Structure formats: C-alpha cells, structure tokens
C-alpha cells in the first residue's frame, strides 16, 4: 500500500508540473515561486530540526564500543572503533559518514537445517554497496549541477564533470553517476519489496523519497538525452534564482519544469522526513563521543539529587546483626 500510494503521489506531482506549465503556463510559479519556497523551507527546516535536536542535551557519554578500549600500554587499543580521544572520534565519524563503516559490517544470518539445525553467518555487503553508490553519486550530481548555478564555473565542477563522463559514451556524454544512481535506487527499492522482513517494516515514508529521487533522476536523464531543453535559458533561470533576479525565459521545455518541481518537492519534504538522517548521523551519541568516561568526567546538565538509602539508615536497620557477626559499625 505504501509503495503504490507513493508511486501514485510522485506521478501526480509529475502531472501537476506538466499541466501547470504546458497547459496553464504558470512558468513563474514553477520556475520561481516554488523553487524559492523549497529552498527556504529546506534551509530553515533543516536548521530548525538540528537546533531542535541540539536543545536536548546528551546527559551521558554512551558510545557503542566496537573494539578494544585503551587501557594498558602493552595492549593495543583500537582508537577508531573505540576512540579514546577526539582524534579517534573524528576518524570514526569520517569513516561512518563518508564510507558507512557500520553498515559495512553487515552480515546475513541464515538458519540451515542440514546436517543439524544451526545458524550460519555470511557476508552481506549489497546494502552497503548500493547505499554508498547512491549517496556518492547523488553528491556528485549535486556538485555537477553547480555549472547551472554559477558563473564563471568553479574548477572543481569541471573536474567532477570530466571524471563523471570519463568514458565518453554517447553524445551528450553519458554520466556514470546517472547510471549508478538509477541502478542503486532501483536496487534499494527492489530490496524493500523483495526481502520479506524489509517489506514488512517499510512504510510510505520509505517508498516516497525513493520514488521521488527516482523521478528526479529519470527526469534529469530524459532531459539530457531525450527531451532536450534550451540549456542557455535554464542557466539563465538558475543564476537568476541564485542572484535574486528571478526570470523565467520563454521556451524552456516542460521536462525541465518537471525536473525542477520534483527537486523542489524533495527539498520541501526533506526536513520533515527520515531524510534528516543526513544531519542526524553527525549527532549520534553512540558514535560521536570518545569512550573515555573513566578518565574524563561527563557532565549531565539536568542532574538532580535522588532519594538514596544512606549508610546510616542501613546501619540503623542492621546494627545488631552486624555487631553480632563482628562486622565493624559506626555507632556502637
């Protein structure tokens, strides 16, 4: 249900953009008003969500330790999987954010019946590989798009563009990231439907962003290779947006507006959704703190006194027994 609803929603969005531009001719709405709204909601929304998280303190230092702690000098501590200082934490976080370290550990557990019932564990890197491929190609694609937003185009954009089209397949050159992102998102969708447990936990909020991103990618690819638009005017519109002199030049193809509209929806949806994991991963208390509790005291800002059972109360209750058994007491 979640999947079909999400797919339908994305199709409606496509139709909306198509009708809005092709039939109603609301270019300024789809080319200026909605993109501005989207950027605003995205920026303010993400900042608000992060700030909202930040308002809640981290009362205890609770890293998940995944390696040997630092104890004796003759035992090699694992400063990355179980950091004892900030340096280790930075490396750990970098590995987590850039290479999905934890997901890389993923295993597959199976129950085998022969010769006797037993659990066996195997490698399972597909989710990691697809996840990594998806996120990195997304990042490359975003950076590549800076060629439409900036003038003159910064050198690194050209570099990425060059690398992305290295194989020079077709005209215009096929971007590798386009192929990778389509394949990765397709895989991420398929595993949600095919693996029974994952299908069971998946809700509309999981399918919708997948379809939306798929929609963005497909519309982008179509626009580049099949339903061409006037790129000069596209850049005119884009630089106009980013220099606050918005324009909607005549004659940009509708496929551009569909693409832009889906991106806008993605930006608007972002702060309200699980996509916030992009920011959340930086704040995860089980990853972003060193395991040095016994060396450096962690302060809990809302710490309050609690009712304890004092030694005096304890001795008052058991004094006679303690004395009889020769256990030292405070008050004879």
């Amino acid at each position, binding site marked *: 249900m979640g999947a079909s*609803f999400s797919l339908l929603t994305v199709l409606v969005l496509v139709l909306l953009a198509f009708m809005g531009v092709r039939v109603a001719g609301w270019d300024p709405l789809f080319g200026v008003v909605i993109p501005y709204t989207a950027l605003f909601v995205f920026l303010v929304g993400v900042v608000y969500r992060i700030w*909202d998280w930040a*308002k*809640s*303190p*981290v*009362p205890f*230092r*609770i890293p*998940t330790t*995944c390696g040997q702690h630092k*104890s004796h000098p*003759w035992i090699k501590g694992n400063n990355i999987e179980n950091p004892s200082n900030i340096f280790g934490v930075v490396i750990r976080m970098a590995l*987590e954010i850039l290479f999905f370290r*934890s*997901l890389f*550990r*993923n*295993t597959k*557990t199976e*129950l085998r019946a022969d010769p006797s*019932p*037993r*659990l066996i*564990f195997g490698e399972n890197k597909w*989710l990691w590989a697809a996840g990594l491929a998806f996120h990195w190609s997304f990042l490359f694609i975003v950076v590549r798009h800076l060629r439409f937003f900036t003038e003159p185009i910064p050198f690194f954009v050209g570099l990425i563009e060059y690398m992305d089209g290295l194989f020079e397949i077709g005209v215009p050159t096929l971007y590798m990231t386009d192929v990778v992102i389509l394949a990765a998102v397709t895989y991420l969708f398929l595993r949600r439907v095919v693996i029974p*447990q*994952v299908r*069971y936990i998946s*809700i*509309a*909020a999981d399918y919708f962003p997948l379809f939306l991103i798929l929609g963005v990618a497909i519309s982008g690819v179509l626009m580049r290779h099949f339903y061409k638009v006037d790129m000069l005017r596209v850049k005119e519109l884009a630089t106009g947006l980013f220099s606050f002199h918005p324009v909607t030049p005549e004659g940009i193809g509708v496929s551009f507006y569909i693409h832009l509209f889906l991106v806008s929806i993605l930006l608007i949806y972002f702060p*309200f*959704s*699980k996509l916030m*994991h992009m920011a*959340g*991963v930086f*704040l*995860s*208390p*089980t*990853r972003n703190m060193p*395991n040095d*509790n*016994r060396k450096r*005291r*962690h*302060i*809990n800002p809302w710490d309050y006194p*609690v009712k*304890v059972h*004092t*030694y005096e109360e*304890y001795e008052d209750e*058991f004094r006679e*027994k303690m004395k*009889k*058994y020769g256990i030292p*007491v405070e008050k004879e």
Partner: protein
Amino acid sequence: MSSELPPELADSPKPKELMAIDYRPPQQPWMETPVNFKPGNYCFPTKAKNLRVLDMPNPREWAPEEEDWKLPENWMEIIREGMKDRLDKYRSFKLFMDICVRCGACADKCHFFLGSGDPKNMPVLRAELLRSVYRGEFTKAGKILGKLAGARKLTIDVIKEWFYYFYQCTECRRCSVFCPYGIDTAEITMMGRELLHLLGLGINWAMEPVANCFRTGNHLGILPNGFKDALDFFAEDAEEITGVKIDVPINKKGAEILFVVPSGDYFGDPGTYTCTGYIMLFHELGLDYTWSTYASEGGNFGLFTSHEMIKRLNAKIYAEAKRLGVKWILGGECGHMWRVVNQYMDTMNGPADFLEEPVSPITGTKFENANSTKMVHIMEFTADLIRHNKLRLDPSRNDNRIVTFHDSCNPARAMGILEEPRYVIKNVCNNFYEMPENTIREQTFCCGGGAGLGTDENMDTRLRGGLPRGNAVRYVQEKHGVNSLACMCAIDRATLITVCDYWARGVEVTGIHEMVANALIMRGEKDRQTDLRGEPLPGKEDEEDV
C-alpha cells in the same frame, strides 16, 4: 554429565522443535497484530510491595494475561508527559526517534529475532513501537498523515505491546554496532521501560532485586550476616583445598581498595567459585582491601529500570568508598555493572575527588584510563599482574578444561574490554578456542537473559534468545571439544548454564577468576587434589580413591 534436562527445562520443547523458526512475517501489518501473552514468553509483573519500597507509582497486583492492567486513569497524559520530558532530556532518544530510515540492517542482528522469528523483535520494529506513537503524538506529519507517516494513536494495546517487547530486549546493543546511524535499541528500550514504570508496569525479577538492593545493599537481599557467612564459607573452602588460611576483610576502614562484585558471585554456583578465586588471589597478593556489606552489589538493576534508579543504587559505591576512606575501587567480573561504572557512575554520582588515582600496589602500574572514575576492572588488574610476572601460575591445573570465551554484551559494547580477559585466560589455561568471529567481541551474542530477563517463567523467550550464543558454543564444542564457557559476568554465569544445558549439552560455565585461582600457586599451599569445584585436578583423578 547426565542426559536428563534440568528441572527448569523439563517442560521446554526439544531444541530441534524450537529451531523450527519461521522468519517470514505474518500477512497482516504489524500495527494490526496484537500481542499474545502466553506462559513462557513474558515475565511476571512487579509485586506491589517492591514498588512501595522504592516509592514508585501505581503499586498493585496485576497480571499481563488479564484484560485490565489497572492503570491510573490519566495514563495517557502520563505517557505523553513522560515522553515529552525524555525527548527534552535525551538527545539520543529524540534523534533515534527521528532518523531511522528502516534499512533493516539491524533485523537479523537481534538474538531474540533470530530465536523467535517474531518481526517485532527486529530492533527496527521494536523501536517503531515507540516511534509510531512519537509520530502520532509529537510530529505534524504524523498527526496529519497518520499511518502513511508510520504514526498511530496511543492505546492500551500499544502499552501492552511495549510491555511485551521492551521486556524481550536485553539492551545488549548488538544492533547498534551495525546501524549506520548508531541507533541504539538499548537506549530505546530503556526509555520504553521508564515510560512503563510511570504506569507501574515492570517485571518482578528486575524490581525485586532493585528493591532489595536499595534496602540491603545487594540484589539478592542478603543481610550483612549472610554476606559475612558466605565469604567466610568460601575462605574455609579455599583453605580446605589449598591448606592456606585466608582472611576476608569486611567494612574495614582505611583499607587501600574497596572491592565490589555482583551479588551473584557470592550467592550461587558457579559465581561462588569465581568469588573464592578473588579472595584467594587477594590473599596471595597480600592486598590491603575490603569488602562492604552496604555496597555489596556492583550490579545495578537500576539500568533495567530507569536512569534515576541507576543513580539511586549506584550512589552506594562512592558513598561507601568515602566512608571507609579507601584510595580507589576495584570491581569484579560483571557485565552491566561495568556499563554503569564506565558510562554512568562518574556522571551520576561523581566527582570522586575524595579518592586517589588508582595505582596497583603490587606492580606500581597507574590505571590512567580510570583516573576520574577511580574504579578499575579486575581483568585490567589481573592482566597487569600477570604481565609483570607477579603471579605464579600453573595453567596445567586447568587442563581438564577446553575453554572458549563469551564476551558479555556490556563490557564488549559499552566499554571495549576485549583483550584483557583473553590475556588472562590464555595465561591460566592451555586449551583455548575462539567461537566464530561473528559471535564474539563487539559482535558477541547475548546470553538471552540480560537486562532483568534471566528468570524462569519466560523460559521459552530465554531459550530462543540464547539460541545464537548456544549455537556458537555448540559449534566449538563439536569442532574443538570445548567443555568450558568462560565469561566475566554474573548474569552470564547464571543464565548461560541453562543456555548450554539446552543448546550445547555438556559445556560448563566458568568465571575467569575461578580458573585464575585454580592455576594460582599460593605460598604455603599443600599439594592440591581438587579444583575449586571439588573435582579432581587433571592427573589427580586416581588419587581421589586412595
């Protein structure tokens, strides 16, 4: 060893039957699948008297299988307020409610899911039980979109579901190792349990120890005289075996070190052998230390209750250290005790500025990693002794043991003490084999009875939870002839016996300091005939009859 199953397993199905697990989720969505309380799959609720001792809300007698749970009238408001309060206090809680993408990497990492196939035992769904309410009550999207956004309303059935599943989680953190965002189900279960406690919903096997610990200083409710009796008894046992007379200092003011262990160590076998091991080791070292009757519990079932309760119970250790005027604290073999010591004690009850930075009086080693908390793990202490050749050891005395080591969840994933126990084990015995790598160290599997679930009334759940661990033990049993499962956790020593009896018959559970004491050549000892269990030492089997 006899092939008869121990009495607590008499009614359980055969392992083969229990292993016929169907991992396919049911047809109907999880929100529409109600919980089914059956004997064997849940723990008995807290008795009213225990809640009264602790001034906790809604003390009453009730039963999970009955329709009416006798909740306070404004229970909904209590839960809402409780959630809001905790969202404001714990970034972990708020973040973990928001950022899960339901990738499912955690699904087959949970021992309860692997053992039961119940989809709500997948960590992701366990958390969704809470998240769905969070979305429905606290987020705009959830309020507007409802089920589409994965939100639902707070109902009595939701509360029942929480009770069922938050007491089918041992807070072992294994899922957290694999989560790309480090989402820790232990944190979520802790929050879930805190919320349940606001309504007076807890389990007696966790709360009776808490109440006991509050009053008598230890979970088992052992009074000071009983405590002394037990330790004296171990000293006599040790004297019988070694011929060395051992003194056990209790509540001794001015001692250098306060020694704290989980009460399981002086209460039940095989923990008692480990406890005997401690006193033999300390006697041999001539250590100036003391036990305490008031702080006679290192374990802390508060961890399975609420953060406030952790603090209430843990406060005794520093208070007692201060009263006795010791320099630093040494802690015994325990799992969750060390999660509390490593991650909570200093923050909650510190700073321990009245103590000194711990230094081993034997080797002069400074335990710099414990400079603030001033509490040292006995495995750090003993490993250091062995490293500096301060112990005379005869590992062949443990030659009847083919040993494997079970990393306890908390020392592994909330501390990272992985090498010290291995170093000690390898120095005190000659036959050591690791279990498969996916089942040890940071990927270790829970015993199935942690976090207050180590009781007998939920045996079905426990055996299922113990499956992955039992499966790995059986693997090394078949491959290497392993007959001893070493561990450094009192709950393990209590619950793994059952797990081994059921899943890997013939494997015994042992503490590490039991093996240390067996191997330890004490000054003035006689020719030992038996190990601490009274079994003949290797090579002495025939002399027994003479």
